[in-house]
């Protein structure tokens, strides 16, 4: 049984506990064991934090990595944002002894030390690279034929995708979706960011971009959206509701249900829609799932 230090991530713990539940349950079913590190904090968040206080960003991130190092386990998270932070901090500190020394001077004050002895893995990478689409397809008891998914990888995933997938034309989530019977549609704005970080700066711009993206997906024939990132999910799920409310500006929009891949994997493995937490989403998915025989 392979073990990982499991880092839930605050966006998942605070908004999507069922996602955390699914990660543990699904990986357990593939023979993995996840151990929670003690006393970890936010990764920290990878966009604004390093701009505001780079020293604190490195120190807090290195502290989290040091805790996983003490467990002697590689770190795994379902959140691509957390993986973005850990990869950048781990890779930078391992290649820059001066910076690593400075960070360790800070960590020494709290009796911690960053060694650089472990790796950080995303759930997507483990599902695709370690377990693989073929093994996953063997666990499927009801393939999800009839779902036409528009995949949204999300910017943070690209930090790691370069290590195991094609950055220009990533296949991992596409292959994993096919493995559970989902048709994937491609659309022009596939790599367009959800822009969640820009909410406090220019909300109108953010909604305009999201609206264009949803329209692209619909024109390509998608009946749902598939992703891995909790921040993107919040942005796209909630964002569509806001667009619906602002009907005067955007016109009538039939929102697309937004699924985390582990939710659809859980359903394909025999779990119910309430088991996987679909009732917690803003955009209703009941009609769509019933249309393909899932209740």
């Amino acid at each position, binding site marked *: 049984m392979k073990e990982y230090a499991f880092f839930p991530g605050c966006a998942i*713990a605070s908004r999507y*506990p069922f996602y955390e539940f699914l990660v543990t349950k699904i990986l357990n079913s593939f023979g993995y064991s996840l151990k929670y590190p003690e006393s970890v904090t936010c990764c*920290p968040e990878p966009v604004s934090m390093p701009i505001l206080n780079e020293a604190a960003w490195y120190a807090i991130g290195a502290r989290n990595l040091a805790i996983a190092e003490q467990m002697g386990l590689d770190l795994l998270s379902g959140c691509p944002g957390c993986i973005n932070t850990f990869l950048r901090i781990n890779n930078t500190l391992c290649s820059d002894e001066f910076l690593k020394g400075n960070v360790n001077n800070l960590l020494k004050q709290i009796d911690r030390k960053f060694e650089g002895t472990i790796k950080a893995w995303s759930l997507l990478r483990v599902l695709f690279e370690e377990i693989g689409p073929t093994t996953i397809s063997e666990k499927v008891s009801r393939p999800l034929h009839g779902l036409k998914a528009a995949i949204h990888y999300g910017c943070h995933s690209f930090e790691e995708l370069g290590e195991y997938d094609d950055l220009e034309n990533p296949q991992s989530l596409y292959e994993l979706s096919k493995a559970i019977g989902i048709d994937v549609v491609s659309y022009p704005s596939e790599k367009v960011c959800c822009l969640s970080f820009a909410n406090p700066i220019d909300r109108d711009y953010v909604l305009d971009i999201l609206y264009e993206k949803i329209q692209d997906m619909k024109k390509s024939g998608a009946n749902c959206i598939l992703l891995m990132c909790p921040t993107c999910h919040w942005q796209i799920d909630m964002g569509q509701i806001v667009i619906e409310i602002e009907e005067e500006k955007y016109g009538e929009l039939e929102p697309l249900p937004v699924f985390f891949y582990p939710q659809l994997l859980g359903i394909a493995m025999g779990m119910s829609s309430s088991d996987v937490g679909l009732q917690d989403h803003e955009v209703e998915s009941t009609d769509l799932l019933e249309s393909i025989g899932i209740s």
Partner: protein
Amino acid sequence: MHQRKKFFKALRNLKSDEIRTKPISSFFSSILDSENLMFNEFVVYSRELFNNIIDFGVTVPIPSYQIKKRERLGLQPLNFDNKEIRKLAELTKLGSVDQ
């Protein structure tokens, strides 16, 4: 002023990053080309996230109903060591690990 320079430098790096796609680039371009107060709003937002980490260990505080939901799902309670984070926050206001 130093932070503002760092902010623009970071935005330029993002802008030139080919992985980042059209909307991000044009969005950052619009910020870079403008003289408005977006920078201040971004800093206020970032400070709020950072303060949340110091106070709660997380950028998004976990509401009580989600804590109960985590319990119902049998998930392990999360415990954060604010003492260590407060110490690091105190230290990093003085020190620098700029490359």
